[in-house]
């Protein structure tokens, strides 16, 4: 069961189906199901590992809300909200 999302505007669990990576709350996990955006951005996100249903976890947000730190494939990286929203994730039911 994902932790309660304290970020306003987060799609609160329990929920099923797709949402965007920037909508997940702290501690929530999702499986990557698609990447949108222009070719360069898509390539970069895919190459960093946002593909093949990888599990992404939201670790924290910067004090001013942006950027967001994620964990995937065993490492951590930060993305700005404007880029994170191009990643579609599936959150499973509780």
């Amino acid at each position, binding site marked *: 069961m994902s932790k309660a999302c304290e970020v306003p505007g987060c799609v609160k669990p329990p929920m099923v189906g797709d949402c965007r990576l920037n909508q997940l709350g702290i501690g929530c996990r999702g499986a990557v199901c698609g990447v949108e955006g222009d070719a360069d951005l898509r390539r970069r996100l895919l190459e960093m590992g946002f593909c093949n249903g990888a599990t992404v976890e939201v670790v924290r947000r910067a004090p001013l809300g942006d950027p967001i730190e994620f964990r995937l494939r065993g*490492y951590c990286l930060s993305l700005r909200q404007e880029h994170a929203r191009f990643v579609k994730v599936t959150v499973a039911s509780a």
Partner: protein
Amino acid sequence: MHDCTFTIEPTRTTSADVIVALAGNPNCGKTTIFNALTGLRQKVGNYPGVTVERKTGRCRLSGGRWASIIDLPGTYSLISRAPDERIAMEVLRGLREDTPAPQVVIAVVDASNLQRNLYLVSQLIEVGRPLVIALNMLDIAQRRGIHVNAGALEKALGVPVVPVVGHRKQGIAELIAAIDRAAVAPMPAFPLPEAMRAEIEKLAPHAGRHAERLLIGDHAEDVQRLARRDDIAPIVSASMARLREQGIDPMQADIEAHYQWIDSITEQATHRGAGYQPVSDGLTAHATGSPLVYAPPKTLTERADAILIHKVWGLLIFAAIMGALFYSLFFIADPIMGWVEEGVAWLGGLVTEHLPEGPIRDLWADGIVAGVGAVVVFVPQIALLFLFLAVLEDSGYLARAAFLMDRLLRGVGLHGKSFIPLLSSFACAIPGIMATRTIEDRRDRLATIFVAPFMSCSARLPVYILLIGTFFAGLSAWGQAAIMLSLYVLGILAAAGTAWIFKRSLLKGQSSAFILELPVYKIPQISQIGRTVWTNSKAFIVRAGTIIFCLSVILWAMAYYPRLPEERIAQMEADIRAAPPIELTAPWITAPPPTDTAAMRAEILEENLRAYIPEAIASAQLEHSISGRLGHAMEPVIRPLGYDWKMGVGLVAAFAAREVFVSQMAIVYSAGDAEEDATDLQASMRADTYPDGRPVWTPAVAASLLVWFVLAMQCMSTVAIVRRETGTWRWPILMILYMNALAYVAALLTYQIGSRLV
């Protein structure tokens, strides 16, 4: 251990037996391994035509042979548009004329981040050169509960895998030995979709071995050229269209296939240690492979981050660290800079004594020695800033600082990593601009470089203090401080506005994805830090120093030539003695000495004359020189701003360094050494009038001049460093034009409106 040295001509490979390229992700410890392989001295330069750093070195192999090692830029991939990655790929494929094709590639892999690192390895395998894997950071991986089996990895990949702990220099000897065992890896069977394979086969007769690269959109020059050909382009679009109909995007399919291969490799080569806890959150068929997810154990880094990136504590700690940086640049570097200046002057003075009076002596003392001083004086600040930066970067904190500040700076079109360069620029823009190296994205870096000079630097302070103290003396101390503060704020606002405009116009283009890795915290290595400080200080002296020195000598000559004729000087002296200015005779009129004799008066007058006459002559000389004439020539242009030719002379001289304005004003007004005591200068300035009686200096004029100094580009050293950091004269020239135009308009408005209000 092994014996290493450096090479003087890395591009000529006749002296090396093996050419080795070092590749790897950013933050994988590649630099540490490069340093361990090549020793203290390496050659650092730029790839011609781009601002990508080029590092090469040499290493001794067994049997007396030498390897030339090229440290490729840290890259996540080899086929994207980023200049770093293009250069790396070109070097690897042997397409660059300035760099020989590598015969062996050492791929540095971060064991604690295996999957993403293996993506680059998969591309290196596709390039097809003999490969060695340096499996680095095994200790960190272990702490995180990840155990990577080097032997299993070697079996899975088919190339030698050498475990290395770079920062402890373990495994280096084995790595060197493995260079001889490098093998071309067997091409993996990347599971591409059938339809895509079919399309590649269809393209093959037309495009040869580039068929797949064409489909996935490789940005290499030769592939792009092929893609644009009239006979190829339509075939490729038809293929892409067919694939799109089946829901396949070639680029995505290619990357996914690579990662599927990576998943299988990591299955074979790793296992998780005791710290891992399986967490089931019921992800079903979407998660390929394991239905369970593992949460890694809480590491020291994560616990540290809980505080350091905390909403409250994180920002407070950040403010404290930045405050310490600022303080040291302002107050610690300052006295050291004073010593450096004195030292240079003293050394120069040793020679001056032996030179005959005349132009050569003056050229030496005021031109050459002063020029060298103008360069060397920056070294303490640069060294100090880079010391700080190296510690912050190596420890891993710099990424956190960028993480905290990014939102704030992005609002004006800058970058989280712009914070430290901009903060440093409040002390001096030269080290600040050099510090923009940490910003990877070219546009963000250029924008930061462009606005850094708007941060009111310490050289402006003497001018601010002089003008505020002279013409706003009526205000209280708080009032004067408020004016000073508003000048700083004006600079910041100008910077924000400029960055915003620039990002939208000149530097318009695709912003690369902001992807910031927060690396594991580690203790910085002293040798690494020392190396960074040394390399950057040396680079500054060599590259920017030459420009600064030349400009310094030129500016000296402009104020020195043409010389006043001897007869003029003699005539001036005679005139002054015949009719001494009233203030030289005044002292004993207002306060008569106890025994007021004519002899005593004459003695005092003579003393005053001896001090005054050289100053008067210097002032006349300055007016007679090129600088002086420029000042006069400029007058019509600067009159609308409220300035006269004397200020013009000051502005010309201030191009050497802003604080020179004060000393130049002192010379023009024959007012003695203004750095010691400015009251003479202040009095002279206040008393100065135009022929019609209007005062030259009014508060509106002073305000206008202050605004000018906030906004104008008036520092040859800054121009030199921008030239060096951007690699072209285009940006420095643009900066001069833009900033001075902005300063002109702002000063104009200030004066015209101010003179009507007051």
